[in-house]
């Protein structure tokens, strides 16, 4: 299955870069012709451009939820999101919105069921910095294994 794994986030905003670091680690571990790795710091329509044409997409990103502890790993589908990660902004569409729009216009996009979001609960996304906080750093290897397992079983 033509699969894209996208690390989302901003690598100069402390924990916000966690998705990108995970995808870099994955890329070093997984060499398969049917899996492509990418990094993006955008959401909405710009993200749509990135994922168009793939049958299955894994998005790896930072998240902050009300009761989450830094380092928690959430496994979500677009339907689980009221507002989506970095894909939401006052300027652009949310992930679910962008997907609905793209499909409405006939773009080739994976079904919501074929999009999985691995979201890492983070602590600080407002301070400029190139390293993640300790709890988030400790969870990166677990997240890498989780995505590798998904890719092996072919489960979206």
């Amino acid at each position, binding site marked *: 299955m033509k699969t894209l794994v996208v690390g989302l986030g901003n690598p100069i905003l402390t924990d916000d870069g966690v998705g990108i670091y995970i995808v870099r680690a994955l890329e070093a571990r997984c060499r398969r012709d049917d899996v492509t790795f990418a990094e993006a710091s955008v*959401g909405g329509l710009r993200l749509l451009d990135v994922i168009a044409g793939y049958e299955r997409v894994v998005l790896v990103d930072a998240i902050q939820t009300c009761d989450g502890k830094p380092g928690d790993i959430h496994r979500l589908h677009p339907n689980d999101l*009221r507002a989506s990660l970095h894909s939401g*902004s*006052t300027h652009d569409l*949310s992930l679910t*919105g962008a997907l*609905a*729009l793209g499909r409405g216009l006939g773009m080739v996009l994976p079904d919501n069921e074929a999009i999985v979001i691995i979201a890492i609960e983070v602590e600080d996304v*407002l301070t400029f910095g190139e390293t993640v906080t300790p709890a988030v750093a400790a969870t990166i290897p677990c997240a890498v294994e989780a995505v590798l397992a998904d890719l092996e079983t072919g489960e979206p």
Partner: protein
Amino acid sequence: MRKISIDPITRLEGHGKIEIFLDEEGNVANAYLVVPELRGFEKFAEGRPVEEMPRITPRICGVCPEAHHMASAKACDAVYHVEVPPTGRKLREILYSAFYVADHTVHFYILGAPDFVLGPDAPPAERNILGLIHKVGLEIGGEVIRCRGMGMDIVGMLGGKTIHPVGALPGGVSKAINEEERAQIEAWGHELVGFGQFGLQLFHDVVLENKAYVDMILSDAYTTPMYYMGLVDERNLVNFYDGKVRVVDPEGNEFVKYAPDEYLDVIAEHVEPWTYLKFPYLKKVGWKGFVTGRDSGVYQATPLSRLNAADGMATPRAQEAYEHFYETMGGKPVHSTLATHWARLIEILYAAERIVELATDPEITDPHVRNIPTETPDEGIGIVEAPRGTLTHHYVTDERGIVQKCNLIVGTTNNYAPISISIKKAAQAMIKKGQVISEGLLDRVEMAFRSYDPCLGCATHTLPGQMPLEVLVRDGEGNVVERLTQFVE
């Protein structure tokens, strides 16, 4: 004092929040937009080679990386005292114009237009891009996405990357274009001009032909006279990439025109205890609080203010649209916040025409696109018009070009005070003597700040064009007496 909070429930990367304070009589006393501030960029930049800044600063913002790239490259040119060759400069401007088309298109069609085309009183669940496409047709929706894509393709062609361009370097750009690329840009440019004209026609047919919308645009709730800022060329015509910053007063007379390296003489920043954000204002007028008018140093930097601060547009079709705009709105300057959407469409047409102009310039395929810096670096300031307002980058380096100091005034920052004032005015129309007109309050307040297209560096959206908002009306003891929500489960 009662307090009304309009607070997005979903907190992700931080959140924007609106606080409305009522006075003893139950009327709106003050309203503020509170947004999370990213911290520590100056420190982050210190100690880095200045030529890295055009690649680092686009990461500040996922919405307008191109604007930071360009302001940063221009600041680097100044740091190294290097002149960009004419073709390098023109290629930068093509990239920047293409970015404008794409960025303004997203704002107008996806965020702004649903309010108008479907109407502010349409059910919120329909008032979004999908509802818009349902109403205007799939074909037009496809055209919007296709034309935005063309803009981004030009950015990718000239910038090396679509998302975080790297093409501009101190002294010019990294790569010239060949005839084939030039012809492609020209062809796309012509299509974008047609698209720009289509947008203005749509606005005319759907908004201007509808008395209720025109009345709303002209209503007092959305009218805030203030100082207006925008970059202009040597003929005082709107320019996004280069020139001097011109500020006009609320009557439209030139108040000041300054070169980038004079910005600290003109702009100062006010600090409030309740937020990290700084509020820029005109130094010579002074900070008088969250009020507008001639005696208040509050200014705005938006598509509307750029048109107000200039004497016209540098391309023919955009100039026609500019004249029509002021004739219809009853002369210059225009003070109606909602007219910003119309101004944005005029800017799309200008940007598209400018792409064609530059792509047909005889020297555009000249291979000499960069002068290698030879001077000792020290200090430089670069200014461009970001879609959301005048963007200033200021770097000080040591003699090796290592950043010692860095100061940025980003687009939306210019508008924090005007946004708060606009929200206050919109809320005043909906809240009188303690009576909250709950129906439409959230929509009207949201419309007031949406026209500024604020870049909050945070996630406040759920479904297309819909913002989760919660309004809490509190009595003097802080008890919630009323709760209004939209898109909150």
